[in-house]
């Protein structure tokens, strides 16, 4: 079920304000965030986010193609290291 278009995309207010602030200040350092559900909006392009995955922060540099996706999509929460045994 997709979100109603009436509401527009979900953008984390606080994070958005932070991005605008960083933009004004010309600050390019990664913005730490837990807001994985926040949609990437065009204003985010060119910024780096440190997106929490439950354990650590993944640095995500936002490009134009990423608009419309959620921040969490770029910070995997599971790690698969292979099955036991493997090679003998």
């Amino acid at each position, binding site marked *: 079920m997709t979100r109603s278009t009436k509401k527009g995309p979900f953008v984390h207010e606080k994070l958005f304000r932070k991005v605008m602030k960083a933009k004004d200040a010309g600050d390019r350092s990664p913005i730490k965030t837990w807001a994985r559900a926040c949609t990437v909006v065009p204003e985010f392009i060119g910024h780096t986010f440190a997106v929490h995955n439950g354990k650590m922060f993944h640095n995500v540099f936002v*490009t134009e*193609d*990423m608009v419309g*996706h959620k921040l*969490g*999509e*770029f910070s*995997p929460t599971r790690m698969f290291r292979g*099955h036991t*045994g493997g090679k003998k």
Partner: protein
Amino acid sequence: MPRVAGVDIPNDKPAWISLRYIYGVGPKIAREICKRLEIADSVRAKDLTEDQLSQIAGLLTGEYVIEGQLRRQVQQSITRLRDISCYRGLRHRRGLPVRGQRTKTNARTRKGPRKTVAGKKSVKEMR
């Protein structure tokens, strides 16, 4: 056999069914086309007139994305997902289901034939 949209040669099924042999034309678009050109359900593909064929071709190239162009579009979307390394892109890279299906069992379409692991306990032994 009539030729529509380049290489596609549907057979002597009803027109609205044989149109579906074109990549990118399914039930919906096939019906839509037949309705707009007023081709009755009973008309077989081989009985289509030259005029109707060219009209179909005109519609397909003008208003719909089909065949090579559609395949390219799909590929491009997948490549885009891969390049931005989002979750869906990662699943495409690994050849695993993209839309959250279970992978403990099934998912054979994406994973391909089973690779049996020697020494792995079977379901029977675990009980």
